């Protein structure tokens, strides 16, 4: 197309030649233009599509599961609070494929979501335990900033959180040694 324009421009008036050159420049500008969709934008859009797809597939799964009636659906929606849902969505994962977050408090939060599958909870459980010196590390419960221990170990406490859906705050004064937690200080909300 460029050659055609140039040939034409040779045989025509100077003004026409200039017009041809303008076309070439416009063509080049379009080719390497900043107005063109950026690659990162494309990835973001894909993520949005994925999230929508995941949301839809989760909803489809809930609809198709014969063991879950209307009440349990409501329960699931209640259980996954808006914040928790956004945590899951931000990470671009479905409730059945949870990856352990870096934050221990977030891990505990995910354990309380009833719609998360057993195997994902086991992964979360293992990830939590790997951050402790061993599974017998003591969990010290605080009330009004005063330690009120009841002899619970981290292994049992994880199960207690799964079973009862307790919401907890991890205190910054928890004890560590060589990168592993040796005593976990928490407050139950």
């Amino acid at each position, binding site marked *: 197309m460029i050659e055609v324009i140039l040939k034409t421009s040779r045989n025509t008036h100077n003004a026409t030649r200039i017009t041809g050159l303008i076309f070439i420049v416009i063509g080049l500008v379009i080719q390497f233009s900043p107005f063109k969709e950026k690659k990162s934008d494309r990835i973001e859009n894909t993520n949005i599509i994925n999230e929508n797809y995941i949301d839809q597939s989760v909803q489809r799964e809930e609809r198709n599961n014969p063991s879950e009636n209307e009440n349990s659906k409501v329960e699931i929606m209640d259980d996954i609070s808006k914040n928790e849902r956004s945590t899951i969505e931000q990470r671009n994962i479905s409730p059945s494929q949870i990856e352990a977050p870096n934050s221990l408090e977030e891990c505990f939060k995910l354990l309380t979501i009833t719609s998360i599958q057993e195997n994902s909870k086991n992964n979360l459980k293992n990830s939590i335990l790997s951050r402790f010196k061993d599974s017998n590390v003591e969990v010290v*419960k605080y009330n*009004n900033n005063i330690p009120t*221990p009841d002899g619970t170990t981290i292994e049992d406490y994880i*199960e207690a959180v799964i*079973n*009862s859906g307790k919401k907890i705050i991890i205190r910054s004064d928890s004890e560590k040694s060589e990168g592993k937690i040796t005593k976990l200080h928490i407050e139950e909300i």
Partner: protein
Amino acid sequence: MKIKFTLVIFLLNIFCSYGQVTDTNSIAMLLKPEQIEAFRTQAQKSVNDLARYMETMVDKSNETAKRDKAVSLAVKLFRTEDNIVEVSSVKNPSEKKILKIRVYFNKIKILPYSKVTIKWYDIYLAPHFTKGTDGRYYGVATILQKFEGKTNNELGKYSDITKKNIQIILEKTEYFEGLDKKEKWILKLGDITVVETRNG
């Protein structure tokens, strides 16, 4: 007159020495009021946890694994597996059976009703801890338990309301942190006894 004076002095002496005994027996000598209050809050939470685990273990719509887990979590709230639970029924309110905690939990898990519900309400925690002969400190939480069992056959439904006392135990334990010997107080649940049972 002299005899009366001596008697008054003698009685005062007894009163003072009694005061000293009660002081050494009082947990207030060992813990600050805010610490005692914090432990009372924790005791309330432990009782609530036990209530929740019991609701989980009797609910037949839950998976067996979940119900079994609730049993072991409930047992761990107690000081020892030897702690007991008194059981009564409206048919024979004076006859109380005594079961060890794990036996009791496993029993209520498999009651022959198609649907069982256990709810605890009106939980009251006594403000004081008193020293027992074993050196531990004991408090008490009083609860009302509503039990309801429904069957699909002609037996129909059984329900009762039982007032129960749950022992709250505060125990001082020693532990080592490196080479340092330290002490800490630990809160556990103890025996559960029946106060009264009536129709629900």
